[in-house]
Structure formats: structure tokens, C-alpha cells
């Protein structure tokens, strides 16, 4: 049969005769006869209408044999493997299965393994790094809140109360936690990596009684005690590195990691929120403060969410499980007849922090002394 042969030494094809015997393929090129083993051959044509054969040996000499597509049957009879996709370099199912396994194992290591190890990693993180992350968070906080020079007394009242609560529950970080009241146009409370807690004046305005606000503070203290903030940062950095490496550095991972140290990233997992709810209510119980306050606060969060929409819900309010379920859980633990956590005088001072919330409820009933 006729074919065309390139010897790899010059950029030309020459006409040759080819003989396909059961043992070998013979190429008669002028006076020369070249023999190729079928087992040593691969296809180089990707089904383009010609059959182009090459030797698999390395280095590739560039020798090529081009048969017309009409020799399919003859070739199939002596070298059926050359008609299979593998001969064209198409990977087998095993390769695909191995890739799927490797990819999902890698995903498991980063997206499950790192979150699993987040607690010890977070505890092992040097103080210096924690401070740096906190600095970034503070930069963000300062972008949309204003420090109030007139809130020192109010902050002191809240810090004294928080210390009393933490002392009862023996919270190890009680000497490091400091509550700051900030002027902002939205209700929010959140903990930062340096164990600071920010409470906005609008959140204070949302509370009608001190126990409601104290319930929120207890929740944030629990996030700090259980190291949820740094665990969250580590989880998100792990996810960021995974996405960067897997997707080829397109920037998705960096975006996740950057978000993790920004306030937007300070959103906790469902497990962390439930944990902080439960631990926060333990503090309240131990300090003799009724959890009915935080239950009412959850009701307000739900009403706020319905009124404002779910688009830009701040940290404490956006958490899942849903506020209604959280309110039910808090109400179930509530005890009757307990005194309010702050005196009426102190509560008024707290309410007046930052000039008082813009939306401060004028009809709020003062708590009894």
C-alpha cells in the first residue's frame, strides 16, 4: 500500500510503500527498508482524516508515516490498539478517577482538615500576628464608626458589668476584654481578634432594658473565650490558599483571605453561633441575670431583619440559626424574679453614650433599681 514518510531529518514527506505483516510494519523507502514494531507505535493525527503514525520511543526522531484514512481496516487487523483513544493520547478512566480522588482529597484537607485543626492552630498563633490582624480589623472599624469622647462613663459601666459576669464564670480572658462604645448608624456588636468588643450606639438604642444589651455582650464574650474569631480567620485563610492553588492564582483565594481579616469576614459558623449562644446564657445564669432579656433582643433582631431586608445585616444580627429559634431557646432558660443587671441611673448613662442613639426609643421603660 502507498503512504508518505518523513524521516525527521528534512521537512519533506516522500512517497513510500508500506507492508503490514502480522509481526511488523515495513516501510520501503527507495532502497531502504525500515521496520517498526506495532507495540512501539502511537497515533499523531487526532482523527483528522489521515492516519499519522510515530514511534513512542524517546527522543522523538520526528519520523512519521502518513497513511490515508482508507487503510483503517488493514491497520485495525494487525494493530487494533492503534484504533483506541489511548493511542491518540486520550487519558483512561483510571487517570480521571485518580484526578477526582486527588482533587477532592486536597479539598478535604484544606476545607475540612484545616477547620478541624483551626482551634489548636488559633491558640498557637503568636500574639504578634493576632495583634496585626486586630489592627486590620480596627482600621475597618474606624472607617465606619466614630469614637465617642463622652462615652467613657458608659463604657466603664458596661466593662464593670462584663467583668462581674466573667468573674462568676471564671472566664480566663476577663482581664484582656475591653468593651468600646462607637457611634455608628446601624445596630451591631462584634468581637475583634485583640479581645475588644465594639458596641454601637444604635444597638444600645435598640435595647429597651439593660438585660437585653447584656445578653448580647455575653454572647460576644463567649466568642472570645472560645477563640471563634481566630478560628474563623484560619478557616478562611485555609480556604483562600486552597482556591488560589487549585484555580491557578486567579485571585479568588486572596479575596476570601482578605475578607477573613476584614469585618465582613467576622461572620461565624452556625456551630460557633450556637456555641456562643449557649455559653453566653451560662454566663447570664451564673451571674443571676435572666435570659429573657436576650430572648427579647432576638425578637427585635428578627423584626429588624424583616424591616431592613437581609442584604446588609450586621454580624450579631445576621447569624444563623434564625433569631426566632434563638429567642425560643433563650426564653426556655429564662428565670423569673431576677433583678435587672444595671441600675436605672447606670442604664440611663449607657443609653446617653455617643449622644444617644438616633433611633433611641423615647418610651423605653426605665429599669427598676
Amino acid at each position, binding site marked *: 500500500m502507498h503512504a508518505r514518510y518523513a524521516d525527521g531529518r528534512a521537512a519533506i514527506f516522500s512517497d513510500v510503500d508500506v507492508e503490514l505483516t502480522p509481526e511488523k510494519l515495513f516501510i520501503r523507502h527507495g532502497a531502504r527498508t525500515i521496520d517498526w514494531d506495532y507495540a512501539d507505535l502511537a497515533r499523531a493525527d487526532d482523527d483528522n482524516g489521515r492516519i499519522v503514525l510515530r514511534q513512542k520511543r524517546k527522543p522523538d526522531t520526528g519520523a512519521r508515516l502518513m497513511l490515508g484514512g482508507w487503510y483503517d481496516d488493514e491497520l485495525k487487523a494487525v494493530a487494533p490498539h492503534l484504533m483506541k483513544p489511548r493511542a491518540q493520547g486520550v487519558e483512561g478512566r483510571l487517570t480521571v478517577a485518580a484526578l477526582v480522588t486527588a482533587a477532592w482529597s486536597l479539598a478535604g484537607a484544606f476545607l475540612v482538615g484545616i477547620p478541624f485543626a483551626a482551634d489548636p492552630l488559633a491558640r498557637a498563633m503568636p500574639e504578634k500576628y493576632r495583634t496585626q490582624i486586630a489592627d486590620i480589623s480596627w482600621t475597618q472599624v474606624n472607617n465606619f464608626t466614630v469614637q465617642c469622647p463622652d462615652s467613657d462613663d458608659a463604657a466603664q459601666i458596661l466593662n464593670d458589668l462584663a467583668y462581674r459576669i466573667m468573674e462568676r464564670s471564671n472566664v480566663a480572658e476577663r482581664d484582656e476584654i475591653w468593651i468600646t462604645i462607637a457611634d455608628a448608624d446601624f445596630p451591631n456588636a462584634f468581637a475583634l481578634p485583640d479581645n475588644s468588643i465594639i458596641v454601637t450606639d444604635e444597638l444600645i438604642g435598640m435595647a429597651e432594658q439593660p438585660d437585653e444589651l447584656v445578653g448580647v455582650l455575653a454572647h460576644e464574650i463567649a466568642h472570645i473565650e472560645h477563640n471563634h474569631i481566630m478560628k474563623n480567620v484560619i478557616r478562611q485563610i485555609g480556604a483562600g490558599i486552597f482556591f488560589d492553588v487549585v484555580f491557578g492564582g486567579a485571585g479568588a483565594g486572596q479575596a476570601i*483571605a482578605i475578607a477573613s481579616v476584614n469585618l465582613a469576614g467576622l461572620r461565624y459558623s452556625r456551630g460557633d453561633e450556637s456555641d456562643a449562644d449557649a455559653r453566653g446564657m451560662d454566663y447570664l445564669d451564673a451571674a443571676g441575670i435572666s435570659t429573657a432579656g436576650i430572648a427579647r433582643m432576638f425578637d427585635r433582631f428578627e423584626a429588624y431583619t424583616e424591616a431592613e431586608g437581609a442584604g446588609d445585616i450586621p454580624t450579631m444580627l445576621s447569624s444563623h440559626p434564625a433569631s426566632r429559634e434563638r429567642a425560643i431557646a433563650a426564653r426556655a432558660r429564662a428565670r423569673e424574679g431576677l433583678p435587672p443587671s444595671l441600675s436605672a441611673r447606670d442604664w440611663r448613662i449607657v443609653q446617653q453614650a455617643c449622644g444617644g442613639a438616633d433611633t433611641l426609643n423615647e418610651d423605653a421603660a426605665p429599669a427598676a433599681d
Partner: protein
Amino acid sequence: MTAEAAPSQTFAHSGKFFNVLGLALKNAGLTIITLTMYRFWARTSMRRRLWSRTWVMGDPLEYTGSAGELFRGFLISLPCFFLPAIFVFYIAPVALEAVWAGWLTFGFYVLSVPLIAAARYWMRRYQLSRTRWRGIKLGLAGSAWGFAAASWGWWVLQLLSLGWYTPAARINRARMMWENTRFGDQPFQFEVQNGESPQKGMWWPFAFGWVGMAVIGLATPIAAGAVSAYVASQIATGEVEYPAYLPVLIGLSVLAIGALGWLLVWAPYNAAAMNRIASLITIDGARFKLRAKTISLFAITLLGWIFVIFSLGLLAPVAGFLQVRYILNRLELIDTPRFAEIGQSVLRDSDSGESLGDAFDLDMGVGVI
């Protein structure tokens, strides 16, 4: 008889749209389920498909690269690129002072300009070294770092000239690439004849694009503002219901019109630059000629963009195929090189795959730069 007698069409691409689309869809599916790890295999199979349907004087090109090589290149790029990137983006912000971390990030982005140029050169070297025609290998000599340094200088000149150095930079880059390109042991030349300007025919289309961009840059936001103001006035009168998606719709429309305008105003320049560059390339005295036209190039590019955007980049190879087919079916070779005199390449094979090319996603999986 040898194949040196050229057929009527020197260059042709016989790829069928649905054949390529089918492969692209299969690759996209496997890329998703392997969390993108299949991309090396996808790229290889697509290149085999596109190369094997590229006919030069009646004989097909052949792609001899393997997915394993690309994967190895990716593994090489892990310590060379990803580890420094992870340090800069994940560790430095928490381990260093904010100012130093900021400078480090800035330095990383500045360094990435020449790094991307070097990656482009390595990628092209790899692709050419894995491309054969009539068994003869192509290749790219020269230094990637030399190209990177020169590209960085041209980039600075482009910035300083507010873009007006772009045509010269494009010709310079093409010159450096093509003067180092080899077919076997035969170098390509990049020659300007009769004292002509290398950028002949490119300046007026460039000026059209530059001015057009300025007009689009001004007109698009003004038009968006006018539409927004009109809609707002209609809403204010209470005659029109405010749909929640309206701002998104206006934003997307502005983006689409801006992108369309961008494509349209630069199409004459792109066609002129491609034609000019092709006309300056010779091999063994034979000259290339490309007949790219503004409208057809615009249409083919737009179609490619639509595929890329609506498939979130997964069908980018289809866009690449459309471009390759467009160019090859409009490319001519004037005169015939002495192919019998062209011997096998003596350039060393690229053994690091496409390394950083994957990290920067330079070819979006298309496989052709």
C-alpha cells in the same frame, strides 16, 4: 513525488465548530468535577484537536505535548510563585508592619509585569517545542528574562506616553518573539523593507481606538447617569414601580455597552497590527500575508467573548478555536521555502511545562498565545 508542491491554499483549518464544542464541553465537565485539576489534560486534548486540524501545504500540524508535562510545570510553579504569593498575600499582612506589607504587595504587582512577560515567553517556548510539522520541530531560542526586561521597559514607556507607545511596543514584542522562532534549524526573520516604518498602517487605527476609548470612557457614565436620573424621576412621580433588579440591570447594560464599544473601537487597530506583523515575518525568503478585516475580526472576537462570559470561562477554548481558524483561513505564504534544506531542530526541549503560564492563566485554557 514529495508534498512540497503547495496546494491552492497554503494554510487552512478544518476544525468543525460542534466537534470542538463537544470536546470543550467534555473538558469543562471534567474540569468541574476535578475542581480544575483536569485543566492540564483538557488543555492538551484541545491543543491536539486544534493543531491536528491545522493544515500547512496539505500536511497537518502535530501537538506532541502531554498533560503530565503541564502538571509538572504547575508543580514547579508552586514553590516559585505560589509560596511567595502566599507569603505576600496571607502571611505578610499579619506578620509585618502594615506599611511593609503594603510595599511588599505593591512590589509583587510591579514584579508581576516582567514575570508575566517571562511566563508568556516560556509558554510559547513550550508550545513551539511541542509542535511539529512533517516531523520537524519548531522552537524558540533566546532568553525569557531578556524578553521580560525589555517588555517591562516598553510597558513603562506605554504608561509614560499615555498609551501612544503601544503600537511600537507591540511590534517590538513581535520582533523579539519571531526573530527567536525556529522551524527546525531554520530561523524566522522579522524584517522591515525599503526603510518603511515598522508600524506602517497602524497609527491611524490606533488613534481611532485611543480617541474612541476616551469618548466611551466619558459617554458611558454620562449615559448611565442620565438613564438613572430619568428612571429616578419616573419613580418619584409614582408612575413606575421600582424593580429591585433595576440598578443591577443598568450597571450590566453600561458594562456591556462599554465592552462592546471597546471591542469595536480597537478592532481596526487589532486587524491592522495583526496584518502588519504577519507581513514582516519571513522564513527562507518566503513572506507571510494575513488578510484580517475589521468587521469580521470584531464579529469573531465578540462571539468568542460571548462564549467566555456566558460559560464563566469554561468554554474559552471555543473562543480560541474561532480565532485560530479565522487567522489560518486568511493567512498566505508568498513563495515557498526550501523545505528539503530544513533540518531537525537542535534547540533543547523546554522541560518545565508552562509553569507560570498556568499560574497567571495566560491562555485561559485556550492553548494558543
